Structure formats: C-alpha cells, structure tokens
C-alpha cells in the first residue's frame, strides 16, 4: 500500500477535535518529494495541530497521514519511532534540552538512533553546527543563546539525522526580519542541497514566499486554498487574498 504513494507527505481527509471543538475538518493535501509547502492561516485555525498530527504526537479522529511512505496515523511504539527517524521537526520554541549543551543536543539522536562512533558523531555535530553558524557555541547551554541562535540550533538538531521530510513550526516567530531571513536562507539551502520535503507553518508571508513552492491556506479547520502564491493572489476568498499578499 505504501509503495503506491509517490508523494512524501499525504494527508487524506484528516479531522481532529479536542472535546467539543473541531480543530481540523477533512483536510487533504499532498506534498511531492523536494517541494516546500507553507501552511498559512489565522491563529487558532489548526496549523500547528496539523504538524503535530504529521509527526504522530497526536492522533487524528479520522483520515490518514502518510510520511515517506509510512502510515504515521496508524503507527505506535517502536514502529512510530522508526518512522520518525525520517522526519525532522523544528519547534516554534526550538525546544532544545536546556540541561544539555548544544553539542549534546545534536549528539543525542545520533547516539540513540545510529551506530556511529564517537568520532563520527563529533564530526557530524561540528559540521551541522558550522552549517548554521554556531560552531563556536557548541559548549554553551541553550539558556545562554539568543532566540535566533536557539532557532538555528533547533534546525541543526532537526536536520542532524538527514531526514526526508522537515516539519517547521513558525520559523520566524519572535525573531526580527533579518534573523528570520537567515533562518529562511538555511531552509532554502537545505532544500537545494538535499531536496528535503518541507511543510512550514508560518505567519510570515515574506518568508513563506521565499521558501514555499505552494501555499496551503487553512480557515476554521478547513483547507480553503492550495496552490502557488501567484495563483492564490486572485483567489475568490478575501481571507486567502489577505493571507498570501505581502503588506
């Protein structure tokens, strides 16, 4: 069944509610390998919930989610853990382990999930930190870093296992325009270098236009538009037009 799905990410009729509140309603879209889709929408429309469903942190009430051929919404335990090895996730807050140095934050998944030697891990961690411009900060604790540095470190950790799919939650949140642009540059670099498939939840249209190939627009838990940014500028829905237009 999984071999017949060519796209890297597939959401098929996904619905989710918390108590009586319907957060997502029959959301369906797919992302081909190497493409970046930016999910836009007003606050509380279910964008972050969509990402959490895609990584298997929560289960949908209905519908199916496939990531890199794995039926994420049906997997549990060890199988889910194995499937997650192919997915990178950048949290809104970066979610670095605050009692670990940057080096140890990046080394943890390599130590736990690969059979690499210490010297290989050292080399990979150094390379990943250098890539995000934090080579000189590897012995620092996350608390000693600025918001932008934490975000870059979070991105390095998300990419350290070289995932097929990268899920990004609000990459520019809490950052100034220049720092947000640096994060976008790193995402673009990753996309160009490894053809990583990306699903990016964001409020930053400027960044979304730089990184995203297509936009998916959510409103009140429903997918109301999906397409290239230029196509959506003339969309019949005013909400979509407002969300995809800069300024």
């Amino acid at each position: 069944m999984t071999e017949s799905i060519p796209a890297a990410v597939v959401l098929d009729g996904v619905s989710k509610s918390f108590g009586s509140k319907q957060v997502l309603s029959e959301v369906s879209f797919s992302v081909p390998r190497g493409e970046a889709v930016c999910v836009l929408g007003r606050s509380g429309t279910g964008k972050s919930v969509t990402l959490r469903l895609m990584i298997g942190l929560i289960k949908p009430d209905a519908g199916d989610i496939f990531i890199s051929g794995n039926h994420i919404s049906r997997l549990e335990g060890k199988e889910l853990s194995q499937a997650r090895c192919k997915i990178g996730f950048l949290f809104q807050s970066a979610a670095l382990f605050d009692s670990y140095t940057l080096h140890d934050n990046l080394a943890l998944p390599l130590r736990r999930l690969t059979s690499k030697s210490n010297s290989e891990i050292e080399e990979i961690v150094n390379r990943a930190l250098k890539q995000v411009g934090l080579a000189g900060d590897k012995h620092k604790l996350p608390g000693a870093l600025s918001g932008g540095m934490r975000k870059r470190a979070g991105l390095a950790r998300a990419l350290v296992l070289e995932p097929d799919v990268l899920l990004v939650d609000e990459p520019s949140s809490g950052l100034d325009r220049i720092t947000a642009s640096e994060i976008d540059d790193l995402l673009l670099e990753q996309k160009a270098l490894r053809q990583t498939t990306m699903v990016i939840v964001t409020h930053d249209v400027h960044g979304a236009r730089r990184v995203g190939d297509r936009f998916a627009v959510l409103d009140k838990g429903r997918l109301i538009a999906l397409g290239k940014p230029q196509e959506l500028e003339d969309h019949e829905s005013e909400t979509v037009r407002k969300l995809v237009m800069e300024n």
Partner: protein
Amino acid sequence: MKSFLQFIGNVTLFGIRVIANLWRRPFELGETWSQLGEMGVRSLPLVSSSGLALGVVMTLHTRSTLVAFGATALIPRVQSLSFFVEIGPLVAALLVAGRVGAGIGAVIANLRVTEQIDAIEVLSVDSFKFLVVPRVVACVIALPLLTVFMDACGLVGGFLSESAVSHLPLQLFIERAFKGVEWSNFVAPTLKTAVFGFIIGTVSSYYGYTMNEGTQGVGKAATNSVVTCSLLVILADVILVKIIFLLFPGSAI
C-alpha cells in the same frame, strides 16, 4: 472521592509502567548516574545538617527526662535506636520529598510546557524511559544512602551535645550507643526507605509528566508533589513498620 480513587489508580499504573520499563533496553545508566548526583549528592548538606541538629535536640530532650530516673547512661542507646528505627528513615524521606520531589515535579512539568518532552519523542526517544525511570531509580538508590548519613550525623550531633554536658568520651558513647542494637533495628528500617524513594520518584514524576496546564501547572506540579509525597511516605511508614515487626519480631523495641 471518585477523583481520589482515579488518582490512586493512575499513580499505581504509572508505577507499574516504571517497573515494566526498568527491564527494557536502553537502561539509561548515564541519566540515572546524573540524577543520582543531582538527588543524592546535592541533598547531602540538607540531610547531614538536619541530622546533626536533630541529634543535638534529641539528646537535650532525652537527657532532661532520663536525669530524673538516673538513667543518663542510656542516652546514647536511646539516641541510636530512635535514629536507626524511625527518625533517620522518616526525616530523610520527608526532607527528600521536599527537595527532590518538588524538583522532579517542577522540572518534568517545565519540560512539558517548553515542548522538550515532545522534542524527545520526535527524536524517537522514549520520553518516559528517558525522564521518569532514571529519576525513580535514583530516588530508590539515594534514599537509603542518605538515611545512613542522617543516622550517622544524628549520632555525631548526639555525641557533641552529650560530651559538652557530661564530658562523655567518644569510645564510651559508641559502646553504649550500639549496645543491644540488633542488625534488624538498622537494616530493615534503612531498606524501607527504598520504598519511600519509589513513592517520591513515582508520584512527583507523575505530577510533572501528566501536567497539562501551561506555566501555571509547573508550580502546581511542584506543590502537589511535595504534599502528596510527604503524606504517602508517612502512610507507607505505618504499613512498613507493621510489616517489619511481622518479619523481624526482634526489632520491636
């Protein structure tokens, strides 16, 4: 009443999950070692100073009573027995419940709030095994060791207080302190603190791990951990003392 029973049920299941995960790989020895340092070594100053102070106070109280009966020679023995049998284990457990229980509850709840537990799961690491099991194991190992320190410091405090008043030599104090004291007076009460450690580790981890009330919940998890752990330690003590008396009838003073 329903929510109380629900809580007992949930904590019991949580504890069973801890025991089941103990035998599963990876064994998280590094994390356990680090938690032992955090809980055991860093609790030493608190436990030692409390033991010393309690030792002094205990001697002052018992002296004033025993003088009336001309039985001051019994002071070292009263001191050692009361520390080995009850004061050492119970006070060490209550101190650890306050310091470590609050710490575990707050730290794990904070990890939940700041999405670090989600991040651990996303990295394909079992967050329960990585965060909860090492903390419970560390509590189980650390508490009997801390109790031994508490007992030792209590005796030192007692000796300092007694020698200041009666100029009792150290050798005679030790001789009198251990005269008539059975191994069962020391070993069983010390080992029962492993159960206290399990209760403290499990209950405080439960409050932190299952917290879902945002930043406000962090403080709540810490407070609930201390209150519940202290209460459960005292209740468990009643049951364990009865069990010790059944298993070692000679240890009943």
